[in-house]
């Protein structure tokens, strides 16, 4: 029996505040990341980064109370940082394939599982934009802020990402009408 398996229930200190939300927040944060990055190892790494940031902010007094929502927001930022690093290495490997055109008012019903798989297969820039816009259901302005782009550039990126998505979805034998 070690200290790590105990909870310091007799003190109202920063660690207790973190330990109090841990059981409820952990599945939310891990699930958020696992669902979006499709890789359990990466989801674990980013989950740990989010919680360690909470621990340090509580310890240093820059954060007073930690909530599940705060942790999920930090987790999203960690994921975006990861995408940025990935985008840089992808750009070194190959020039970004820019999809031209528009998706011409795609009107169809997608299979949810196949759509999620398609999203995971896209390049990181497209995947990032579509994940924030559609999976997280954020407004375009918020997606632009998170990706550090202008709204116009983000709108253009989303159009290209949708074209890439449609092409990839249809190539996997997805329903076409």
């Amino acid at each position: 029996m070690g200290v790590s398996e105990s909870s310091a229930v007799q003190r109202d200190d920063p660690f207790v505040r973190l330990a109090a939300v841990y059981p409820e927040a952990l599945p939310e944060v891990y699930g958020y990341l696992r669902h979006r990055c499709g890789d359990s190892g990466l989801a674990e790494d980013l989950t740990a980064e989010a919680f360690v940031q909470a621990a340090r902010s509580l310890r240093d007094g820059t954060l007073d109370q930690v909530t599940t929502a705060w942790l999920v927001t930090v987790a999203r930022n960690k994921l975006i940082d990861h995408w940025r690093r990935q985008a840089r290495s992808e750009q070194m490997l190959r020039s970004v394939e820019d999809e031209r055109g528009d998706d011409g008012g795609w009107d169809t019903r997608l299979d949810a599982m196949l759509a999620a798989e398609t999203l995971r297969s896209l390049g990181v820039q497209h995947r990032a934009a579509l994940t924030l816009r559609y999976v997280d259901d954020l407004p375009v302005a918020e997606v632009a802020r998170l990706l550090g782009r202008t709204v116009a550039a983000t709108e253009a990126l989303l159009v290209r990402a949708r074209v890439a998505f449609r092409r990839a979805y249809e190539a996997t034998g997805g329903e076409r009408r």
Partner: protein
Amino acid sequence: MSDPLDVLRARSSAQNPPPRFVLELYQRLHREFVLPTPGIQRDGPAGAPVRRAVPCLIVPDINQALDFYQSAFGAGGVERHSLPDGTLVYAAFRLGDTPFGLAADEPPWNRSPAILGGSTVPIDLDVDDADMVVRLAVTAGAQVVIPVADQSYGQRAGRLADPFGHLWIISSPLQPTS
């Protein structure tokens, strides 16, 4: 017209990570709070992995031991760590700037001096007044093993056994003879 990509929208996505990860992360978070103490400097080569040592004393009863170390040595910074059901499993305290842990007998992992029939590690306490500290400790229940006396190495020192069998060497600097 609804957007076909709306199918991607996440519903509740809570998911339990592997139990191994749950425990590892909890331990790591706890270390974030316990280990870094401002003012502690690392000696040794740059990048030496050890930050400091924290002795953990095994005793029959944690609360009783805390009482003794508080009255005998003025222990401070007491923290008790309990399970959700209230079971006290660990305590931490400080003597001066040195952190100590306390854990209860739990053979075969944790065995106090009483179970082992002795202690192998005396702990040196640097104090301002060895005579006074020893008097306080004896009042609180310690036994004198070697009485306080002037030592040839320039210290005034004596040795105690506390009520749980842990050994303490109490030393203060010898006052220059006037």
